[in-house]
């Protein structure tokens, strides 16, 4: 207890604590504010688009041009938790167009925001990923090596204090110090979301936010442990900091980003033009069949659309395999694991898009059947089908994020064990 209190006092009064925590709180609040603005725009766009597209589906207004040529549009709602972790979802297409002539195709998304993509988005998770991990390193690098340099470690250990207690005290003390700005920033971000965000947050969202906060705490813990560990195996604080910064650059920046390059080289995608050629051929076969009077006259493009669905399935499976490889490589770094888990818990990862496409596919079947029915029987009183995007269940999300959470906990344990051993063997003089 005394040790913890000492560490707390020592760190809290330092200038670096003041500057770091101010920066963390400001950045977290700013990130939340910016993302709330983004979300509000996306939500507005979604509402407006849905109102427009609902009119297209109105049986009174429907005509053949609409059904065959222009098609109807399905919209993907933004996930409210993108404020915490923007993930990849906002950059993927956010609508699917379904027409009997052209099949279904995904469109929209923030393609022309490439300038944004170059720098990455500023969300709460990216502040935790970059800034808080750096802050954790800066607050722990000198925990052991620094005291040794100053000679206070010798003094401390000459009392009847077991070394493991010293280590534990240091960890808990410093960890609490970094948690103060993190929790303040989190509280500020949550306050913004609740008071100003106009977000509809239900119980499940609060549970997710709680889990995301816990995940971030775990991630920060890994970097505190790393700082302690390196501090225990080096003689000088400056060396410890250098090594930590090297590890930070590799772990936070290089490894996750390189993972996609390596995955791209390991799992090449089928050439786009080949897929397009197949699609084109299937379509023309159907077209010729229809014009020639053969084929299924009720649903002339059914054959082509079945082949397209098969192609989509094939390409999708390849893309998922590549994403899995990239994720596997990125998970070597705690930052990769953190990002993947945060995306999963915030429901802004590729899974959301897959779910949207799957529900659009189901809708497509029902819709085509409904249109056919209407052609055969004009009086058909059946209401049109509705898009039913399955909500992401909390336990599903937790289940698939569990691996990454365990991974982060594993890092904590391994690093703690490492620092424990190193501390016991540490040469104090």
């Amino acid at each position, binding site marked *: 207890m005394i040790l913890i209190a000492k560490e707390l006092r020592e760190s809290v009064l330092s200038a*670096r604590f003041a*500057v*770091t925590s101010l920066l963390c709180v400001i950045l977290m609040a700013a990130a939340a504010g910016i993302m709330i603005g983004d979300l509000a*725009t996306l939500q507005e*766009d979604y509402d*407006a*688009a849905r109102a427009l597209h609902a009119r297209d589906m109105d049986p009174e207004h429907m005509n053949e041009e609409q059904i065959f040529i*222009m098609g109807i549009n399905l919209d993907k709602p933004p996930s409210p938790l993108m404020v915490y972790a923007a993930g990849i979802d906002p*950059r*993927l297409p*956010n*609508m699917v167009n379904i027409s009997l002539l052209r099949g279904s195709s*995904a469109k*929209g998304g923030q*393609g*022309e*925001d*490439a*300038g*944004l*993509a*170059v*720098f990455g988005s*500023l969300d709460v998770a990216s502040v935790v990923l970059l*800034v808080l991990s*750096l802050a954790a390193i*800066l607050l722990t690098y000198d925990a052991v090596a620094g005291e040794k340099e100053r000679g206070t470690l010798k003094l401390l250990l000459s009392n009847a204090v077991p070394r493991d207690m010293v280590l534990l005290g240091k960890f808990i003390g410093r960890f609490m110090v970094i948690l103060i700005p993190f929790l303040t920033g989190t509280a500020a971000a949550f306050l913004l979301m609740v008071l100003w965000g106009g977000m509809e947050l239900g119980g499940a969202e609060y549970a997710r936010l709680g889990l995301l906060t816990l995940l971030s705490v775990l991630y920060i813990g890994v970097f505190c442990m790393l700082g302690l560990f390196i501090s225990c195996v080096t003689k000088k604080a400056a060396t410890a*900091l250098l090594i930590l*910064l090297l590890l930070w650059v590799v772990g936070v*920046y*290089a490894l996750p980003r*390189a993972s*996609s*390059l*390596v*995955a*791209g*080289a390991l799992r*090449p*995608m089928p*050439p*786009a*033009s080949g897929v*397009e*050629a197949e699609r*084109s051929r299937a*379509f*023309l076969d159907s*077209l*010729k069949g229809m014009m*020639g009077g053969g084929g299924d006259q009720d649903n002339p493009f059914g054959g082509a659309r079945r082949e397209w669905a098969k192609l989509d399935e094939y*390409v999708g499976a390849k*893309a998922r395999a*590549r*994403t899995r*490889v*990239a994720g596997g490589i*990125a998970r070597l770094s705690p930052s*990769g694991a953190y990002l*993947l888990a945060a995306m999963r818990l915030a429901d802004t990862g590729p899974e959301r898009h897959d779910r949207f496409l799957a529900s659009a596919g189901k809708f497509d079947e029902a819709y085509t059947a409904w249109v056919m029915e209407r052609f055969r029987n004009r009086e058909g009183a059946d209401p049109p089908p509705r898009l039913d995007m399955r909500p992401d269940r909390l336990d599903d999300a937790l289940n698939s994020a569990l691996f990454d959470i365990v991974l982060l906990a594993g890092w904590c344990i391994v690093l703690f064990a490492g620092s424990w051993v190193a501390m016991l063997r540490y040469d104090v003089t």
Partner: protein
Amino acid sequence: MLLSIVAKEVRECVLSLRFALAFALCLPLLVGSSAVLIGEYGAKRQAYESATSFHREQITSYPSGQMVYLLGHSVDKPPASLGALVEGADAYVGSIAFTSVLSGLEVYGTSAEHDVAGSLFGRIDPAGVIMVVLSLVALLLSYDAVAGEREGGTLKLCLSNAVPRDVLIAGKYLGRLMVVLAPFCVSFVIAALLMVLSPNIEMGGADLLRLLLVLVLSVLYISAFVLLGLLVSTRTRQASSSLMILLLVWVVLLFGVPRAAWAVASFVRDVPSKQKMFQEQMAALMEVIEEQRKQGAPEGDPESAEERMINDILGRRQKVADYHRRKVVARNDLARQVSLVSPSAAFLQASMALAETDMGRHWRFIDAARAYDPEFLTYIHRVVSEGTVDRFSMDGGGDWPLDEMPVFILPQRGLGESLAGAKFELASLGIWNVLLFLGTWVSFLRAEVA
């Protein structure tokens, strides 16, 4: 005297652990990322070539001449030859422009759509490594230049000799800059050699010049961070607090400012949603169809009436797209201007402009595809009216004279234009260097030595 100070600084740093770490970070990241991207460029090039030939021959599989209008045609954007150095915004936007009466001009094939893995964590390229890693290395090699010597007491000793302060600080700057540039230049030259020697990439003289300009730009950028390190170092008592402040400034300049600039720009300059644009384009199409219905059968020859209608539809759709594009460009420009505050954003934007991988290339591609359209449609019209290809037949289109089909070319931007496009960014980096140097100079002249 300057030389001996420079030599002393270089000796001091080269033997330190930091210098080894700088090499350990710089060399594998710069060379590795460019090597992988060169491989990727080869794959992209191949995909581009097969897609181009497929899209040229595609019309021969259409059942009739008239179908070309309905089923559309596509042109492809070649990969940028310096993409292996600066991937830029070009890596995130589509590479196929598809035009048909029904859909107008649409660009698709963005990296996020077909390569989710590539967008999960962001991408890495040599320019990104320079932006993130080299700036950090520059800070690590300069943070203690003054504060460290002050702590060690050697500064006092040094100044007790007849060494003018301005020469000393200039020597420190040059020495530390050279130490950072050593690992950088070695890695950059290897990466550039890989690019030049790779059979995948055809590099012209202009490309080599661009490569050289990116090198100069990088030196300017790294120099700004060395100066920043010196400035903070002269103003702090302890080397460790100097590093602390520098790291926080670094995070803000690298990650905070550019992203916040985008947020500010999208807040100030509203861009209507894509859904709205699609809807308005569809409405334009419907309008033309409605008008046709009201007018009844057009007068005169039906073929030219059809061409008029197609042009009418495409023209109206283009108007909507132009409006949207103006909004996007206004927002992007504002974001660029705001982010000039950060040397990192200025560096990345300028290197994209110099390597021809910025958004300008995307807009140029769209313009070229639009300019190609009438040429292509005239060709179709001519072939159909000459009777080489059947207008309405259903059993294969007949013989298309493919060698007479106009060729789509993406015009290259001259080096001068690229430089002009990056002038604000270059000026920003220059001003940063001058200001930081003056600041360092003044504060070192006034610095307390003891």
